[in-house]
């Protein structure tokens, strides 16, 4: 019985992880306002503890990891963090295009 509970709990956790991942990818495609929301959240949230860091300070990949760290440390909602990542990466890409 205990093994069954552990298995069910593991399956639930895994399915939640997968669903979150898929939802994130779909959201980027479907939501053109994500970058605008991310810019607002970036401006409001980061300076709750420290100075705002410019998008060009890190690469796209580093921002993804760094903001996930901040999601945990500052208890930021996951959807807000995805918006912030979208904004930071879009800002970095604008810089490259120039």
């Amino acid at each position: 019985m205990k093994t069954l509970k552990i298995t069910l709990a593991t399956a639930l956790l895994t399915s939640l992880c997968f669903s979150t991942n898929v939802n994130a990818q779909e959201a980027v495609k479907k939501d053109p306002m994500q970058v605008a929301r991310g810019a607002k959240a970036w401006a409001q949230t980061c300076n709750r503890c420290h100075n705002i860091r410019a998008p060009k300070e890190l690469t796209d990949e580093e921002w993804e990891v760094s903001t996930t760290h901040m999601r945990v440390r500052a208890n930021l909602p996951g959807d807000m963090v995805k918006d912030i990542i979208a904004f930071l990466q879009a800002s970095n890409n604008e810089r490259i295009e120039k």
Partner: protein
Amino acid sequence: MYQIFKKRILYAPLLTCALVISYSQAHSQETTIDVDDKIDELDDKIDELELLKKDLIGLKNNLEKKEETIRDKENKLDGEIRSINSLRNSMSVRESEPFSKWHLAGYADIGFESISGDTNDSFLAGKFNPSFHFQFKDWIMFESELEIETSNDGETELALEYSQLNFLVHDNLTIVAGKFLSPIGQFQERLHPSWINRSINGPAGFGHGGVQPSSDVGIMLRGGVSTSDDLIFTYSLAAGNGPRFGHDEDELELEGFGRDNDSNKSFGGRIALVHSSSLEFGFSYLNAGLNAEEELLEDGDLEPAKNADYRLWGADLAYSKGPWDIRAEYLNSKTTPTGMLLEEEVEEEEEEEGHGGAEPVNWKTWYAQIAYRLSEITDHPILAKIEPVVRYGQFRVRVEDTLISNSENRWNFGVNYWAAPTIVIKAGIERRNYILPERTDETRYLMQLAYGF
């Protein structure tokens, strides 16, 4: 007369016809001349058009040749673009979507300290705190921070600040397991790095021998939920091995222990509301059991067994918007000995051997800090980067209602210069007024350069 009139009538039409015919002949001759001219003109135009046509055909042929050349070049370029795109796609897939990603962060600082009285002035090696973040997709993150510093006698000290696995279960839930920074209050978990802290050091009661737990080993559920467009509810609920008794009666060991000495877990955490106006209010609570077995000390004395309940609660407030950074925090903890029989035994031990077991101890601390960046009132390239800061705090420790010597009031005045958003030079004066007269007050002159990366 009639005959004459008749003849005239008969001849009139004939004359008219003759006149008409002669006129028409004359007119037709003129028309023929005009048409010939027109025909000549048209012939000339046709010749011109023929020439133009020939020119246009030549031009067309040239354009067709050029178009063909361009098409060939376009085809070549298309081929090259396709091959470059193919290469770029393969590279970008490798670069942007690897399963595992990582980031090295952290901070370092150096400083100088001059303390009134007999203490020597010192350059401070400060700390080097590298922080490693490894992430697998958006499911799991492992993060760890080391603290490397030089001790007063020149030894290099290495400590593990935290080492935790974060399971990103849901947008609103992360499960943390391992050694984590204490979620109690706001200073220890979020503000203590020197490039974030507006003051040069921690407030009174937030270091060794203070109120604030530094870390714990266990499991934690945490996350944030947007309750409306303007409000976020955050929570951090943890269970861990908990604190232990310290060597001195007024001290607890509040660092995370790798093993639990009494199977009695600590439970607590922090809940907070964050408003979009940048106002945050948090409440913290921690409950643990403290148990230590009887122990033979190095000097041959016997340390009696100690048992106590440990409870901590606290509240914190923050407002950080634009040039303002305002924070206040209050923490109150106490140990209450458990087991009347044990207490009696402890008292007997104290009477017989001069040292005892658990005693009721109460720690209280609070601070308020205001920092203001001048960038709001000046565009001057240097002045705009200056940030005055002032902090006041109190720390009280009572053992059985008796105040002990490290109780103090502390003032900090400082000026920060932000060379970059993560690089700050701080200069400050700290005044420590100890409550008990046997301890001399101190004035400290401090400087620090901190870099967050």
